[in-house]
């Protein structure tokens, strides 16, 4: 059963023709989404939000969107919280986000 590494290398080979999302993106033009993942965030569903965003970046083949996590953002009762950084604009914080809302926020960001 120990075949993971071979599996993933095969997947890599199969995907060679696909686009590489992070390549050739100027970091200064990158949209950065930060998901709060302290104890509060995790228990409120931050992992689902995080993975929904990563999935959507892939599904829509979005370039120049980076999703990362951070610790507790300080308003535990409002978790899951995401903070969106768009170059040249003030950061925006969204509270009580779920997977569907996160995907919608991402769609609006990309449209804008």
């Amino acid at each position, binding site marked *: *059963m*120990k075949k*993971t*590494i071979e*599996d*993933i*290398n095969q*997947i*890599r080979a199969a*995907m060679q023709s*696909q686009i*590489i*999302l*992070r390549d050739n993106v100027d970091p200064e033009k990158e949209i950065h989404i930060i998901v709060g*993942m*302290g*104890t509060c965030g*995790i*228990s409120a569903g931050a*992992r*689902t939000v*995080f*993975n929904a965003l*990563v*999935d959507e*970046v*892939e599904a829509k083949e979005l370039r120049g969107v980076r*999703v*990362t*996590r951070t*610790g*507790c953002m300080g308003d535990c009762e409002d978790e899951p919280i995401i903070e969106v950084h768009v170059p040249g604009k003030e950061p925006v914080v969204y509270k009580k986000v779920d997977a569907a809302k996160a995907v919608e926020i991402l769609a609006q960001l990309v449209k804008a």
Partner: protein
Amino acid sequence: MRDLSLVILELACNSLDAGAKNLFLRLEYGERTTRINIDDDGCGFDVSTLGKGSSKGSTGLGLALTMREAQECGGKMAVLSQTEGKRGTRIELEYPKDVPTGDLGATVATLICDECRLRLDIVKGEDIFSLDTAELEGEWSLQTPFILRDIRQNVNKTIQHIGVGALL
């Protein structure tokens, strides 16, 4: 936390926030118990402060809550940590085998996004599933979404194969 994968995410995020560059996760499914070990090379902490809070706020509460939660469902947790010599932290958990594993793949994918080295061993009897991001370094970054998705699916396939109740 509603399953083991969320407990692991919680503890591993602590490791990453402590500056860990190497993270070793081991899940061992036994006849009666599930054992989880989490080792890191982060900055460590003073175990005597666990759960007491600090001037910085609620530091250490997550760990204390995890310990209480483990005890309340019939398991136990041990923490070994040193702030000297960069020896990091080791957390040992033991749960009754009925506690569901949950979406371990999502936990692993989330952790890989932090660009640390992650080694995961899932053991049941003679079966061993291993994943080491150090061995996966290749042409593309592991943080590329389709690679993350495939790692996630691979881990969850293993959990289902072992038959330990992934909640997907």
